[in-house]
Each structure stands twice: as C-alpha cells, then as structure tokens.
C-alpha cells in the first residue's frame, strides 16, 4: 500500500467516524423539553407564552392565549378557538398542562370539556402526578368533571389521556381535517385543599 493510498484510507475512515458521531449527536440534541416539544416533536403550538396575573386557582379558559402564572406551556392541544381548544393526537398522544411550579398536597381539580362523537362513551384518564382517575363523557355536550387528589410526590403536569382520538372524517365525512381530535378543553380550575362538599 503506497503512502497516498494509506492517506486516502485514513481520511475515509476518519470521515466515516466523523459522520457516525455526527449522526448520533444529531439524534440526541441537548435542548430543553420545551424546545423538543415545539421544534422537534411539534407537540405544542406554544413558544413565546404570555402569562397574566391570574393563577390556576382562579381558573383557566382554554380559549385564552394568556396563561395563568403556573402554566409553562400546553402539549397536545391545537390552536385556541372561541370556545376552547381541541386535543390533537397527531401532536401528542395525550394532553398535558405543563407547569412551572410543582403541585403537591391536597388538590381539587375542576375541568370542563366536550368529546367528539367517537370519544363519547369511551374513557378519558385524568392524571395528576402518580394519581389518576377515569371519566367517561356520556355525549358530545360540554360537561364538568371534578377530581380530588392527594399528592405525596410533587407533580409537574396535569395530563388528560383520551382513548379514541380520530380525524374529524371519522364522524363527519364532509370535514377532512387531518388533526386527530378526541376532547375539546374549555376550562380548568385547580384549587388547593379538598373539594367543597
């Protein structure tokens, strides 16, 4: 093997190693969860979030683009509409309200949402940290659900996991929206302490 050939072989091996390391690094970005959700997974439409003075205890209308102080961003929800926001399983399998401050202790969660025709009659799991409960929307009308939780461990998100996300063509052949809807979130309120009797 001549010196020139050896040089070329070395260069080829070095380039192959360089590209292998580059591919690994490209697939393992060193970024925040929010960046990952917005730019890479495209699981959220929130980047530059506007927050008001209200807190979750005052209630959070999903039609609003101004979030309560504790909310970091929303995952798995499409853009706001005048009544609220649809979940979109093409963005994320479930809906998450990610928080800037952890939840702990005794809490009372009130959530109002509607369901699509396919989701009506099927379970929706609502999770706060390691505690979860399942509710079943009876129809497509907006309904209120109340969950009481006692959290021994801090929780950084409120999650809702519908079981029957589907494109709107599934119940309305005229509407071929590619988003995969299941529930439409309208309002959420989270108060410390047990739920009032």
């Amino acid at each position: 093997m001549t010196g020139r050939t050896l040089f070329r072989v070395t260069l080829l091996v070095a380039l192959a190693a360089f590209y292998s390391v580059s591919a690994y690094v490209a697939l393992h970005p060193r970024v925040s969860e929010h960046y990952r959700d917005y730019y890479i997974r495209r699981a959220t439409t929130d980047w530059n979030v506007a927050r008001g003075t209200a807190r979750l205890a005052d209630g959070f209308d999903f039609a609003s683009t101004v979030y309560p102080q504790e909310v970091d961003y929303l995952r798995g929800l499409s853009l706001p509409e005048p009544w609220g926001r649809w979940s979109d399983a093409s963005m994320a399998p479930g809906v998450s309200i990610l928080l800037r401050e952890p939840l702990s202790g005794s809490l009372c969660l009130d959530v109002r949402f509607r369901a699509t025709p396919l989701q009506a009659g099927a379970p929706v799991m609502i999770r706060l940290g390691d505690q979860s409960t399942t509710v079943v929307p009876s129809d497509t009308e907006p309904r209120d659900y109340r969950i009481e939780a006692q959290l021994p461990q801090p929780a950084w998100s409120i999650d809702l996991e519908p079981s029957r996300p589907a494109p709107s063509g599934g119940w309305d052949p005229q509407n071929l929206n590619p988003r995969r809807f299941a529930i439409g979130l309208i309002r959420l309120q989270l108060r410390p302490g047990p739920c009032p009797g």
Partner: protein
Amino acid sequence: MSMLSTLYTPTAARHDRPTGRLDVRWQKILVALALSVVSEIATWVFVRGYGYWVLGQSLGLRSLCRWDCFWYGSIVLYGYDAVPSRSPASDAANWAFYPLFPLLAGLWHRLAGFGFEDSLIITGTLALPVCIYLFIEFVDEDDIAVSPWVSGSLVAFGPYSLYARTGYSEPVYFALCTGALLALRRNRWLAAGLLAAACSATRLVGVFLVLPMLAHLVGRGDRASGPSERGARLEPLLAIALVPLGVTLFGWYLYGRSGDMLAFAHIQVAWGRSLQNPLVVWWQGVHDGGWPRVFALQAGLALLAAAYLCGSRRIGYGAYLAAAVMLPLCSSVWSIPRYVFWQPVFLLVLADLVRWPPLARILLPLLWAGYFLMIAAWFSGQRFVV
C-alpha cells in the same frame, strides 16, 4: 435572432486551436462578463424606471435587498442566533440560512467596510459571471450545440435570475454546483468533492450531489480496476464522502450555539413548514389553484426534465434534479421556482430545448420577459417571488 441561429459545435470548439487573438476559453469568459454587465445595466435601468414611473420612488440596486437578504444580513452583522427570538411569534432564528454565502459576504463587510446589503449584493453579483462561464462550459461539455450567448443568457436572464442581485445565496450555490458537476465530468474527483462540500454549506440540496457522483462512479465501471490503480479507486469514494462535510460542519456549529445539530431543519416550524408527503403537497398545490398551482406545475415540469435527463442517459443529473425538487415538495410548493431555475441540470435541459431555433424563438423571449416581470413583482411585494 442571429445570436440564436449561430451554428456552434461545442466539441469542435473545445478541440480547435484559437481563432484570431482569443482562444475559446477567453471567448467564453468574455461572453460571461458581457452578459453579466448587460444584465447589471438592464436591471439597474429597469429598477430605476419601475421605481420612477410605477412606484414613484427612487430605487437603486441596493433596494433589491429584501426578505431573505435581511436574514443573511443578520448573520453577517451578528452571526447565528443563540435562541429563537425573531418574528412576531418570537420562534424564528437565522439558523435556516446556510453559512457559506454570508461568510463570503462577511469578508466584504469586514475588510472593505461595506454595509450588509452591499456586501450580500456584491457577493451575488460577482458570483453571476462565474455561474455564466461555468454553465457555458457545462453545456459545452455535454455536447449541446448552442451558442455561449444563448446558454449564458439562460443563467443571466432566466425568470428567477433576479436572485443574483437580491442578496440571496442562489448564485454562489449555482457556481459551486456547476463547478462540482464540471469537475466530475472531467474526472477530477477531489475537486468535485470539495466543491460539492462547499455547495452543501451553501444550500441543503447541495448534499444531493452525491447522486451524480455515485452515478458517474457506477457508470465508469471497472476502468480503474487495475492493480496499479487501487489508490485511484479510493479517490471517488473520498470525493463522495466529502459532499456532506459542509452541512455537517454547519450542524456542529449550530450544536454549539443551540444544542441542536439539526436546528437548520427544525427551525422551519417558525415558517409553518412541516415534513409531509410530497405527493400530497403537490396535489394540494394543484387543488388550491392560483400561484400554488403554477408552482406545482413547475415542480411537475422539473420532474419531467429529470425524467428526460434519465432517459437521455444522464441518470445522475436526473436523480439530482428530482431530489432537489422533492426536498422542497416535502413541505410546500411556494419555494419551488428557486429550486428549479437555480439548478444547472434544469437549465441544461432548457439548453437542450433551445437547440431547435423555432423553440428558442418562443422560449428565450419568454424567459427574458419573465426576468423583468419578476423584478416588478419583487418591488410590488408579491409573495410568489419571495
């Protein structure tokens, strides 16, 4: 029309001895310079006239720096952003703009003290005669019998040639890409690999130059299979391996800035672009009508041109053109013309077509008219030209 009907035999031109005082290469260089100067003057006159009579403004060549020119300007002035914070939604960053063009423009800015607009426009303007000259050589190398004036004018006066004067990266990309293909054609593998690497640091589609290189490697068969040429067999592989180096180094730089090596692709979300099925995007463009339909048809024409190249045994060029069109089709039809009209292999097909004088008499005036219409559209803020 005497220019169009000039009998020109490129193979003969390459091998004949110089006629008169100028040899063939110098003739091509002079043609390239002359077309560049004519294009510069024509553009200046049109811009001044359009500004004065239509818009009631005093416009100059500097006024052509708009839209992406400002993004490149942000790189020349401040470098790449550390976090996305531009645009009304604060989610855009200049990561989508590849580094070689603003790096070259930055030299003018730093060494000569020019403003960012002038630096970017001068870089593109100076790249234009290089583009024209290399394309004339490229057409000759392919034995397409058209006059250098005609082949050169396809570059200088195409409908989207405007981008050579607007502070966009297209002319630098075109020059590097044509240079790489020319070097490949002449079996100068390392030169082709290095130019292609620079090309991939100018626009992402540059990485697809691996396709004509692979096709050339396969096409040359076992010509270099002798024992004494074992080392020479490695040269094409090395050249092909060099192609993604430009974009990979850019990725590493962005990794240092943002923690995301693919930030140049991920940032597209700020412009509402997501990865989709190109057939669906194409069909949606046809279905939407208006400009999207025009762009979808242009993409279709470019794919037909790619098929023509494959059919005429230029499979590498065809694959390259198809890949270069399919990449933007994965997100939107809006930027298709830039990907089509600034591809040397697409212009090669046009050069092939204008060999026939009747077709040339229709096509060339249409292309030239398109050039001036696009300048007018540029100043009237039409989205289709951005």
